[in-house]
């Protein structure tokens, strides 16, 4: 499990955001900010990921896919909510179709504020998340053999 702390993989899900934060996540992966120098890789498959980067305020239809993506990520996992919409719904808080925050659906570990969140902010957020991921991993190791978690115990 030690390899995990060196190369965390991220999966990104857009839960009804305006796209601003999403393109900033992508921008963070590209040459000018280049999070890949930390070993962070953007993967499309939640089963390969350690960190869920989530944007947007979650609407009626996105609830279930978001929960599914979260459930599919193997333990230990951390959720980083990016942008103001993900934290509180922001400017769309009063819209009829908005849940108002990622934490209404899944537990969130790190909040990254900003509208849209800047790539540097996102890097900071992911670095904070890595610390939490490490703690979670240590806790899992304490609880028993991390490699042999029983089905159902994972989530």
């Amino acid at each position, binding site marked *: 499990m030690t390899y995990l702390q060196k190369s965390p993989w991220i999966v990104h899900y857009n839960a009804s955001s305006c796209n601003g934060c999403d393109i900033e996540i992508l921008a963070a992966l590209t040459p000018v900010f280049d999070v890949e120098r930390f070993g962070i890789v953007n993967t499309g498959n939640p089963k390969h990921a350690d960190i869920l980067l989530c944007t947007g305020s979650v*609407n*009626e*239809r996105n609830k279930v896919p978001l929960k599914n993506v979260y459930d599919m990520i193997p333990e230990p996992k951390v959720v980083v909510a990016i942008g103001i919409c993900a934290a*509180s719904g922001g400017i769309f808080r*009063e819209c*009829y*179709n908005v849940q108002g925050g990622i934490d209404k659906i899944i537990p969130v570990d790190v909040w990254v504020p900003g509208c849209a969140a800047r790539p540097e902010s996102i890097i900071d957020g992911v670095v904070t998340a890595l610390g939490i991921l490490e703690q979670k991993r240590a806790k899992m190791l304490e609880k028993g053999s991390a490699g042999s978690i029983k089905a159902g115990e994972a989530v």
Partner: protein
Amino acid sequence: MTAQAQATTIIDVGKLVGSVEHYRNEGYRLVQIGCTKVGDTYEINYSFDKDYHFENIRIVVSADTEVPSISGMYWNSFIYENEMHDLFGIQVRGMNIDFKGTLFRTSVKYPFSQPPVTVTKGDKP
């Protein structure tokens, strides 16, 4: 800044299909179909464009009027008609692709036909 000429003709629901057919034969393209709630009635705007010439036809209907679909003339109208049904609750007859209310799944049924929610300014975060 030059204002564009925007002619709007108000017609009856019964004449809708005929008018749309006229635009279709003239070679106009469908720009949009949009609905507006004004009081208890709904205004539905059909906008057409040909060589940057923009024209509108408008029908004014009540909530229980069934509007004929124009998807026979404009195949792409289904997306606007389904939207109109899902957000305003307007019944559209004879759509080529009928999502039956699943295009926009909202937490409130027909949200745009509901009265506005009270302003909640300055509430505690």
